[in-house]
């Protein structure tokens, strides 16, 4: 079987376990009149409860670029990043054009001076809040907020950033987010296991292994969560599924560390 086919079969197997998570990936927009930009999954622009129809490609790229920047960006840097193959003057002209083509609603989201461009302070960006959750979860000494240990957090950490966009500035941000969210989901699963909430811990760990099946720390988190719930048979099933996938892909076995987690493997 082709590597891609095996990977698809494995993922489909995991997705059957995790499908109930996906339906809650993106929550409803804020109830206020806030402008809200989503870059997790597809690009979306919300005004209060209303999702704007698909924006022109140039507007989407400009708004997505600003959504991924926490601070104001000089016009020079923005133009050079968004139009890397253009001359400096053409890139600057393209930026002016993109700004002028923003529609009235989306224009309210952008603050453009002669020096730099940024989002207005009241624009809510989903990946910014999700990053904040991730950092709080990873920091073992940090102070968690009440909803950090929840299925809302699992949903906030379960989606890739603009997965079908291949601009350099998106790919780098997307990979950075992917690594951050996988670490955060494992930390979330561990914390939920410690809190004796194995059901949610399993959901968090499944979100990891459905994204990255060969990541053994994710598989270990899933095994631990099943064991915390008292389900040795489920832990063994997870182990065997991973071992089979690893053997098919790379011809090797799981580490001794993972094997040692599964009591059934050591039973006489």
């Amino acid at each position, binding site marked *: 079987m082709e590597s891609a086919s095996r990977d698809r079969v494995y993922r489909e197997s995991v997705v059957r376990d995790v499908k109930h998570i996906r339906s809650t990936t993106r929550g409803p927009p804020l109830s206020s009149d806030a402008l809200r930009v989503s870059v997790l999954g597809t690009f979306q622009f919300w005004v209060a409860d209303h999702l704007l129809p698909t924006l022109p490609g140039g507007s989407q790229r400009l708004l997505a670029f600003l959504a991924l920047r926490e601070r104001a960006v000089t016009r020079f840097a923005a133009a050079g990043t968004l139009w890397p193959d253009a001359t400096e003057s053409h890139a600057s002209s393209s930026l002016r054009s993109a700004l002028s083509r923003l529609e009235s609603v989306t224009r309210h989201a952008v603050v453009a001076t002669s020096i730099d461009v940024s989002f207005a302070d009241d624009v809510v960006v989903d990946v910014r809040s999700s990053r904040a959750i991730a950092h709080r979860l990873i920091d073992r000494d940090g102070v968690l907020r009440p909803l950090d240990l929840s299925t809302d957090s699992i949903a906030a950490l379960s989606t890739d950033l603009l997965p079908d966009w291949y601009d350099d500035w998106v790919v780098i941000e997307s990979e950075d987010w992917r690594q951050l969210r996988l670490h955060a989901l494992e930390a979330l699963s561990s914390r939920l296991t410690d809190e004796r909430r194995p059901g949610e811990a399993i959901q968090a760990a499944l979100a990891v292994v459905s994204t990255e099946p*060969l990541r053994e720390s994710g598989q270990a988190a899933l095994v631990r969560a099943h064991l915390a719930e008292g389900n040795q048979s489920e832990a063994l099933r997870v182990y065997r599924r991973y071992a089979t996938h690893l053997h098919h892909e790379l011809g*090797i076995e*799981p580490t001794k560390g993972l094997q040692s987690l599964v009591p059934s493997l050591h039973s006489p």
Partner: protein
Amino acid sequence: MATERTGLLIIRAWVEEGSSAPLRAQLSMTSDVSAGMERTSVHSDVDDVGIEVEGWLREILRGPELIAP
């Protein structure tokens, strides 16, 4: 003169401590980003990753009409 076609190859690599073959390298690649990612592969051997990258570069040079499905 450069063509309008751009390829993209992303290698996600990490180390699984304690494994008999600790390298994990997951490659996602396309010879034309306008078509999206065309295939993925995983390897635990450095040389295999090199071979995969070389093959992808040769696909870029050959052009779309000769690229294997």
